[in-house]
């Protein structure tokens, strides 16, 4: 091989190496199963990520259609954030199977199953489906608790840094900013709800236990007799009795749940029906996690004050 050829090869290699060292800036393609996870990914990733949620904020996250467009979205993703704990069990597995994207395999840096770092509530010690659609791993509606959100934000920042090491410092800084804001916000939320410690509430599905635990509220009944089982007249009569006996005057309903049932119960118990959502964007002007929690805490405090 001549010296000239070697030089040309060396130059080519150097140029190729230079190109690899400074790749064109491409945002990380992040897919979240639900809008709450998407909101956290946006907060941590900032301008370095392009985030897409599969579930709509207004729909029941247990029952999302495994639409073919989601296959394409997952096929191109660098990172997938899912709740885990069987929340998406009915629709995510076939999507991933068709998406054939090894970056999103369980255990890969691009896969963040956030429930893995969370202390889940209501993990059953014994159960079968006669108890309704009980989740073997515990109650999966944990993102409404700011303490859990902090854990998850940390997981997201860690994984983003693994997938995009060049920007690890940015993700770390974004996490610090987010956590600082979260601490300040949580102190404010606690202060707003402190006067209502122990207030008794009713929810449609068993989906606000984490909120209740964090803010010292007491869920005395759910309109569903068992998870996933439609309210029956007999059960609603029992709910009404409990609400009257325990002076529970607030019913929380998500956008996809049957508000009419809640209104019927509220009429007989002099209660307020509150439109509360777990997903940012389900209610107007609640696009970020902070917006959503501000709205929830404000709505609860106002209702508790009125019904005190």
């Amino acid at each position, binding site marked *: 091989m001549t010296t000239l050829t070697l030089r040309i090869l060396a130059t080519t290699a150097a140029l190729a190496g230079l190109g690899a060292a400074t790749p064109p800036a491409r945002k990380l393609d992040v897919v979240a199963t639900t809008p709450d996870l998407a909101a956290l990914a946006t907060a941590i990733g900032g301008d370095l990520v392009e985030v897409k949620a599969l579930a*709509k904020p*207004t*729909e*029941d996250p*247990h*029952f999302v*259609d*495994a*639409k*073919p*467009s989601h*296959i*394409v979205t997952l*096929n191109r993703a660098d990172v997938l954030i899912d709740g*885990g*704990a*069987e929340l998406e*069990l*009915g*629709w*995510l*597995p*076939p999507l991933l*199977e*068709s*998406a*054939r994207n*090894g970056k999103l*395999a*369980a255990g890969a840096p691009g896969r963040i*199953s956030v*429930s*893995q*770092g*969370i*202390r*889940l509530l209501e*993990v*059953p*010690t014994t*159960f*079968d*489906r006669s108890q*309704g*659609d009980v989740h*073997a*791993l*515990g109650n999966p509606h944990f993102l409404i608790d700011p*303490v*859990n959100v902090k*854990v998850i934000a*940390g*997981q997201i920042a860690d994984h983003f840094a693994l997938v995009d090491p060049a920007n690890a410092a940015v993700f770390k800084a974004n996490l610090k900013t987010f956590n600082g804001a979260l601490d300040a916000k949580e102190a404010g939320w606690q202060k707003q709800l402190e006067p209502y410690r122990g207030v008794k509430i009713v929810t449609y599905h068993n989906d606000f236990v984490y909120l209740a635990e964090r803010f010292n509220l007491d869920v005395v009944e759910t309109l569903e007799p068992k998870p*996933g*089982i*439609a309210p029956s007249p007999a059960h609603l009569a029992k709910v009404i009795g409990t609400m009257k006996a325990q002076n529970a005057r607030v019913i929380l309903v998500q*956008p*996809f*749940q*049957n508000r009419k049932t809640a209104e019927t119960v509220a009429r007989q118990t002099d209660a307020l029906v509150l439109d509360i959502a777990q997903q940012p964007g389900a209610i107007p002007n609640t696009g970020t996690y902070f917006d959503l929690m501000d709205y929830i805490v404000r709505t609860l405090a106002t209702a508790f004050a009125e019904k005190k």
Partner: protein
Amino acid sequence: MRVQHLFTACIIAVGVPGAVLAQQPAPRTSGAYMNTSFVGLMDFGWSTEPDVGSLQLGDHDPRVRGFSIPNGELALDGTVDPYFKGFTNIVYKLDAQGETGVELEEMYFLTTSLPGNLQLKGGQFFAEFGRQNPQHPHAWAFADEPLVLHRMFGPEGLRSQGLRLSWLVPTSWYTEATVGVFNSAGGTTFSFRSDESAEIHGGAPDERDVRDPADLLVVPRVATSFDLSSTQTLLVGVSGAFGPNSSGPDARTQIYGTDLYWKWKSPRAHQGFPFVSFQAEGMTRRYTAGRRVSSENPNVTFSDEVLRDQGAYAQVVWGIKPLVVAGLRGEFATGSVAAFASPTRANRVRVSPNLTWYPTEFSKFRLQYNYDFRDGLGPDHSVWMQIEFLLGAHAAHKF
């Protein structure tokens, strides 16, 4: 139930602060070594046709006046290793005489990490032709198999031993191209070298071994999908199935099909309701029948000819409110005049309204009425009640 998950979850849950867990994430996933599930399906009802088997042609249809157990399906699936997933469906069923039949309905591997958006499937499995053929009865919106599917693929659907390669086309919308290559013989390749194909051509089946690659069955398909809006999705596909048939040494069959599925779901869907879906499939078959000796009378020989069959169904399914679904299906199947007057190729129409109530997503009650009209036999009326239960973590449904 997943005892292993429960056990893991219990260990994790014992009073450990979340912050500590965040530093030491514990394993907690939905995928165990193997998922096990079982679907039990029973029918009962009545028909004006005493020979119910001549009217209800599918293997998972109601079989007799009174009670039928057409499908007890044991499904096993899981991740094999970093490269493969594995699936098995073992079906138990009782025939019209109450005798138990067992079949290895499906058993296949699926790759998880091939490059180039490719995916390989291999084993025994339903051919990806159209929409309903690859679906199991649990996912059907009606108590019986559409007429056109029986006309083209027989009582058990088109499935065989083979390989299927799929390519997810790198377009901004969903497009998937698949091609399956299968053995063309056996009881579940009705329009091809099936030993039951005498029902179609009337001759003694040509029994021979595979001579060359042209004796294999090839099933190509292209499907594409668009979100028409945030609440509406359209999925359309075209499929083909090409291979030899058993009416003669050089006889071949070509089947072409097109399918469409549209669904609207409320942006505020609760448990997936309300929704409306429309599904339709049309198929046409060109069956070259060779010169053959009648299977019933050795003194009769049928000359070679081309048998042409068409059929289609269209169905609307309305999820009225959580766990209540109404459906209406209309369908027909026709066949050209041939030397052998096959009952399974006779012209026929059927209209079927039904109503399904799911006490939960794990059980189902379905009431269906069928109005049938068979050329030369006239109208028939049937009412079927279908009851289904599901144990374990049944695999989630594709769109």
